[in-house]
Structures are given as C-alpha cells and as structure tokens.
C-alpha cells in the first residue's frame, strides 16, 4: 500500500466540506454536522486549557464560524484532515484568548475589526477609511438593523455571511440574482438612512 496516496480527508469529512461549500440549504446541514462532530473540543478546552465552560464554548464556536468561512470561500485546501486543521484553528484562538487576557483586554470593549474587509483597499486609501470606520457607533448600527424590517435584515445577514446574490435568490425565493442585488442595495440604503437620521 502506498501511504503517500492515502486520502487526507475521510468520506464524511469530504461530505461536510462539500455541503458547506454549496452555500444553499445544504450549507446549514453541513454547518450542523461540522459543529456536532468536533463538539468534544469544548471538553478539551475545559480540561486541557483549564477554561471556564462558557469560554470553552465561545472558543469552539468561534473556531467553527471561522472554519465555515474558510470552507465556504474555498480557502481550506484539504492538505490535512479536517480534525487536524480545525484543532489548529482552535489552538490559535486559544493563544489569542490568552494574549487578550494577559494584556487585560476585554473582548466586549474592543471595536469590531474590519481589517479583513480593508485588505481589498490600497494602503493609501486604507487609513482614511479606517479612521472613518473607527467613528462608527456600533451599538446604534446594531439597533438600526432591527428597524430595517425582517426581510431586509435576513437578506443583509446572508450577504454579510458571504452568500452570493444567486444563493440568496435560491434561499429567499427571489426570481433572479439581479432582483436580489437591487433589493439588497435598497435595504442597505434604508439602513444608512436610519443610521444617519439618529
């Protein structure tokens, strides 16, 4: 037997990844399977890292959310097993948590990071936008999200979660992705008006 040809991912792992990558109704099933499959990491967080139960849950949830994003965007290469890869994220997040605790930073008081989104802007423009973003009143923005209406809110949540307009069309039963795009931008405009009219 040639060990070098051994597939890195098991059939079940491959199925989970394929489900999440599909971005439709299948994605939720895949997310559920991913969360359930490695939920024992929470125990590891408690016993191995001596974390309180709530912190271990948060750590694991953040790991799964991060993994879902990477799988959905296609950046998980499958070079290691899903478990190994997931555990490395889990461990890195634990190190981040430790660092935050030792530098005495509470996650509640941190501003939301938009650094990932800013990657797409050139350095020259980045600092201008970053300064403006830093002025955002996140609490007000969050409150306004409730006021845009449930349909708008649902659509915008899917968009922010990385769903393409065509996937949103399928999930929310819109005829075309163009209709979704128009509606989505209208919802965003509504949110902007609500935010600025505070």
């Amino acid at each position, binding site marked *: 037997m040639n060990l070098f040809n051994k597939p890195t991912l098991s059939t079940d792992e491959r199925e989970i990844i394929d489900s999440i990558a599909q971005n439709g109704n299948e994605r939720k*099933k895949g997310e559920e399977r991913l969360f*359930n499959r490695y*939920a*024992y990491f929470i125990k590891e967080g408690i016993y191995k890292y001596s974390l309180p139960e709530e912190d271990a849950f948060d750590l694991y949830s953040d790991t799964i959310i991060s993994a879902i994003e990477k799988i959905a965007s296609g950046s998980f290469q499958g070079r290691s097993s899903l478990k190994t890869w997931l555990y490395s994220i889990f461990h890195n997040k634990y190190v981040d948590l430790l660092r935050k605790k030792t530098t005495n930073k509470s996650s509640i008081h941190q501003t*939301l990071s938009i650094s990932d989104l800013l990657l797409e*802007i050139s350095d020259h423009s980045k600092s*201008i936008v970053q300064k403006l973003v830093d002025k955002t009143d996140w609490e007000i923005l969050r409150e306004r999200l409730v006021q845009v209406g449930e349909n708008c809110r649902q659509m915008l949540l899917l968009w922010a979660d990385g769903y393409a307009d065509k996937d949103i069309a399928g999930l929310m039963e819109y005829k075309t992705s163009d209709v979704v795009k128009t509606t989505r931008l209208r919802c965003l405009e509504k949110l*902007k008006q609500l935010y600025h009219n505070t």
Partner: protein
Amino acid sequence: MENYLEYIDAYFQRMLDPEEIKRFEQKITEDKEFADEVAFYLSAKQSLKAEGDREKKEWFRQLLAQQKPVINIDRNRLARKVWLYRVSAAAAVIICVFLAWSMFFSKPASPQQMAESYINENFKTLSIKMGEKDSLQEGLRLYNEGQYDSALQQFESMIQRDTGNYKVKNYLGIIYLRLGNYDKALQYFKQFEDDTLYANPSQFNQALTLLKRNMPGDKQKAKELLEHVRDQDLDGKEIALKLLDKW
C-alpha cells in the same frame, strides 16, 4: 447626498476593471462624502457579520444542548463534597423518573418528538463490556466520551475488515444519526435489515432516523417500518407500539 452604494458594492464584489479601481481609490482620498459612504458600507457589513455570528452561536448552543455526552461537564470535580454526590444522585433519579414518565405516559405533540426523546435517552451512551479491550469496546468508549469522529474512524476501519459485522453497522448508523447525517445512518441501518438475528434493530432504527430527518414522505415510511416491527415482533416493538400510539 449622492448614492454611491452600487458603485461601492461593485468595487468590493471585484467587478470593476483596473482603471476603475484606481479611480475608486483616488476618489476616497479626494471626496470626503464618498469616503464616508465606503466606511458605512464596510461598517454595515461587519456589523451584520457580527450579528450573524451571534445568531449562529445561539444556534450552536441549542445543538450542544442536544449532545448530552459532550456537555456532561464536571466543573469542580476536586472540590465537590460527598453530600453533593448524594443530592445529585437523588436529583438524577427524580429526573430519570420524570423523563421516563414524560416519555411513556405523557402525550408528546408528535412521534418526531418522542423519537427525539428516545434517541437522546438511549443513544446518549452505548453499553460497554467491562474488562474487554477490543476494537469494538474502544470504539464504544470513544463514542461515550463524545469523540464521535474518532469512534467513526474506529468503526469504519472495522467494517472494512469485517464487512458483515452487523453490530458495527448498527453503531455506525447510530453515530451518523447523532451527527445529523441521516442519509448515511439509514444506509448503515439498512445494510443489516435482512440479517437473521435474534434481535435485529435495523428497521426500528431506520424508523427513528426517518422521524428525525423528517423530509417529505419520511413520516409515512417510518410508520410503515414501525408497523412492520410490531407485526413481525422485531427488536424495538414495545417502543414502536408507543410511537404508533401517538400517530
């Protein structure tokens, strides 16, 4: 105020050509109103993402609540006093009596709910033979510790070596059922449906899985399987009778 959202959206969706990208970034530096709009677009997206993640975490919490072996966490093992064990034991007895009562005597709203209760109660842990240390027992130990993926690997490697082992197929079915992979669970349960066994839980477990999957036609198919279990006096008959009673 001019509406730039479509233009900004096109930029972040990478739909602009290199020349337009240059103009876009130039505009950020020259037009304060435009830069404000870009900042709003990004802030809104990030705020929505955070909101979505919060909702996802709530959903995860619910999923975890269904995984009793995993959340059976002892927070202060070393500090716990003997009397606390006694109180816990008494509470456990009361809870078990209550659960048994609610499962068998109360009227759940649907057979699906009853199947859910049955799965949570009976597949929470699987019985291990004390003193035996073979591959099967190791797989069961992993399962009982909530290490479903390791248990899966253990049983899957066993089934490759011994393709006719119905016990392993049954355990694989149960793990996939617990993991929410109902198609795969059904596949394994079905594989030993026709095996002549003293007690064959294949059809009963298929019925439970179908009730859990709850896709169009599943409920009816589950009913037919449960009726078959009842008529043929198969494993799971007593519960099948109770489930059919709730139809």
